[in-house]
C-alpha cells in the first residue's frame, strides 16, 4: 500500500538533526519504506540521516512523504508521526 502525505515544515530551523535522527529510528522500527520529496522533486530515503539532511529543507517549504507500509492505517499513522517529529520535535 503506498500513500502520499504532504505538509509544510514549520520548525523555525527547518528539517534538522534531531528530528532526522528520530525519523530514522521510527521508520526502522515500523518496517515501512519511506521516501521524502521536496517541492523541487529532490528525494531522500528516510533510512539515511545524511541524505535527509542534505535536502536542506527550510522552514516554510512543503515536504511530501511517500510511504510504502503494510496497510493504509499504518501508513497514515506513520505519516502523522513523522510530521509531528518535524514540526513539534
Amino acid at each position, binding site marked *: 500500500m503506498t500513500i502520499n502525505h504532504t505538509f509544510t515544515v514549520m520548525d523555525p530551523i527547518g528539517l*534538522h538533526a534531531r528530528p532526522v*535522527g*528520530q525519523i530514522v*529510528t521510527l521508520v526502522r522500527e515500523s518496517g515501512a519504506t519511506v521516501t521524502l520529496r521536496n517541492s523541487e522533486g529532490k528525494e531522500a530515503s528516510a533510512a539515511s540521516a545524511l541524505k535527509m539532511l542534505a535536502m*536542506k529543507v527550510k522552514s*516554510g517549504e512543503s515536504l511530501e512523504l511517500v510511504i510504502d507500509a503494510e496497510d493504509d492505517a499504518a501508513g497514515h499513522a506513520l505519516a502523522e508521526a513523522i510530521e509531528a517529529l518535524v514540526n513539534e520535535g
Partner: protein
Amino acid sequence: MSATELTGIGVGSRAAVGEVFLLETSDAVYEHQSTKHSPAEEASVLATAIATTAAGIRDESATSDPTAREILEALLIILEDPELQEMAKPYLSEGDDAPTALFKALDEFAELMGDDEEFLSRVADLRGIAARISGWVRGIAAGPSIPTEGTWIIVAEDLTPLETSQFGGSVVGVVTELGGPTSHTAIICRALSLPAVVSAKGAMTLTPGESVLVDPEGNRVVSGGTLSDATQALTFIPQSDAPLITVRANIGGLEDATHAAKTSARGVGLFRTEVLYLSASREPTLDEQVASYVEVLKAAPAGKIIIRTIDAGSDKPVPFLALGHEENPALGVRGFRLAHDFGDFQKSQLAALAAAIDATGRDVGVMAPMVSTVDEVKSFHALCHEAGITQVGIMIETPAIIQVLPDLKGILSFLSIGTNDLSQYLFAADRMHPQLGALNNPWQPGLLRSVNQVVEKARDLDIPVGVCGESAANPLLSIVFAGLGISSVSVAPSAVEAVSTALASVSQKQAKQASLLALAASTPAEAEATVRAMFG
C-alpha cells in the same frame, strides 16, 4: 593571599568548590595517517569501530538529561548511516586509515551542507564522536575521561552534548571560556542544577588539580576560594504594600492569562498575539479572532492590557502567510514589516482587537513590533484609528526608532522596550550565538544607557515607558529600570512575585541611586557588582 579571579556569566545561584579538571582532546586522534592494510580491511575496521563506539556512548549517556540524549542519539545515527561509510570508501582506496577516511568523509559532508548554520553548530560534536572512534582504532584515549571519584570543576573551551552527557556525580561545577546565557552549556547546566560560569576569559589557564570556587551569583571563578567567599543570593524584605512601579505579566494566550490572573500582576504588559496564529493552517476568520481575544481579555489579570500585533518572521513562520526563505531572518521581513505585504491580514487583526475591546470593556493599548521609521509609526497609527483603537504604542527594539522619538509627539500613547531584541540590534549580536553571549548581557552599559535615552526622550512626549524584555525579570535590573524612570515592567507570570517583592523593598531614592551606579559603570560586571553591593 591574593587569589586569581576570572569573570564571566553565572548560571544558577548555588556556588561550588572543587578541583580543576581540564577537558582537552589529544591531537593524535585527529592526525591524518595512512595504512598498510587493504581498503576492504580498513572498511571493516571502520564499521566495527563506529558500532562499538556508538554502543559505548549510548551506555554512558543512558542516565543523562533527555534533551542531551536526544541530540546525542541524532548525532550517532548520522555517524552510523551506511551512506557515510560509502563516502569514506574512496579515501580508503587512496590508502587512508579508517579514522582519516572518516574525518575526510565528514568534512566532505559538512561542505555539502554549506551555510546550514544548524548543521554547522553540530559539526564539532560529530568530529568529537569521530575522535572517539579514531581513539578506539588507534588505541589512544580521545580525551582524558573524567574520574568517577572526587569533586571536579570541569574546565573547557566549550562543552558538547557528548561531553556533558558523560558528567557523573563527581562533577560539581563547570567553567567555560565560550558560551553565553542561552548556550548549550548553560542550558544543560541549568537542567542538571550544576553551578557554572560561562564566557569566562582565561578559563583554560587554570591549573589542573587546583581548587577553585565557582560563584555564579558573583559571575566569577576564584582560585583557592572557599564557599564562605561565595556571593550570597539577594533576599528582599518588602517595605511597602505595593511595588515602586507597576508589575505586569507577559502572556501568549488563554492559559498564560489564567495563570497570570493568579499572581499579583496588575494587568498585562505584553500579549504576544502571534501565538494564536503560529499553529493555524489557514487564516482565522474575523469572528474566530474576536472570540479568541475576548476569551483572553476576560481571563487576564485586572489592570491595563498591552497587546502586541503579530510578530512573525521567516524564523517564526505563520503557515497562512507565505514567508519565503531569508538568509538573515532577524534582519528580514518581520513584525510590522509584514503589514506591507499582508495589509488585509493586519487590518483584520486590528478589527478583531477593536471588537474584543468593545465587547469586554477592558482598558487596552495596542502596539506594533519592529518599527524603525516615523512613516511606519504613522502608518500603524492610521490603521489603528481606522479600526477604532485609541491607545496606540510601539515596541522599542531598533536603535533607529530611538533617534526619531521626538518626531512622534502627539501620535503615541505609550512605549514598551523589548530589551532582548534591542540588545541584539544594538550590539549586532545574534541572541543565540555561542560566542556572543557576553554582548547580550542585559547589564551592558550600551543597553542600559540606551534605555535611559528612551526614557529621557519620552519625557518630552509625555508618555509612559515600560520594559517587557526578559531583563526585567531580574529583580536587581527591575530596580535599576524603576530608578531610570521606567513606569512599568512586564515579566513572565512565574517571575511576577520575585520582581514585585524586590520593587516593594526599595524607595524611589534607592532605585534612583541604583540606576545612577548602573549608568556610571563602563562594564556589565561593574554595573551588576555596584548595584548588587547596595542591596547585599
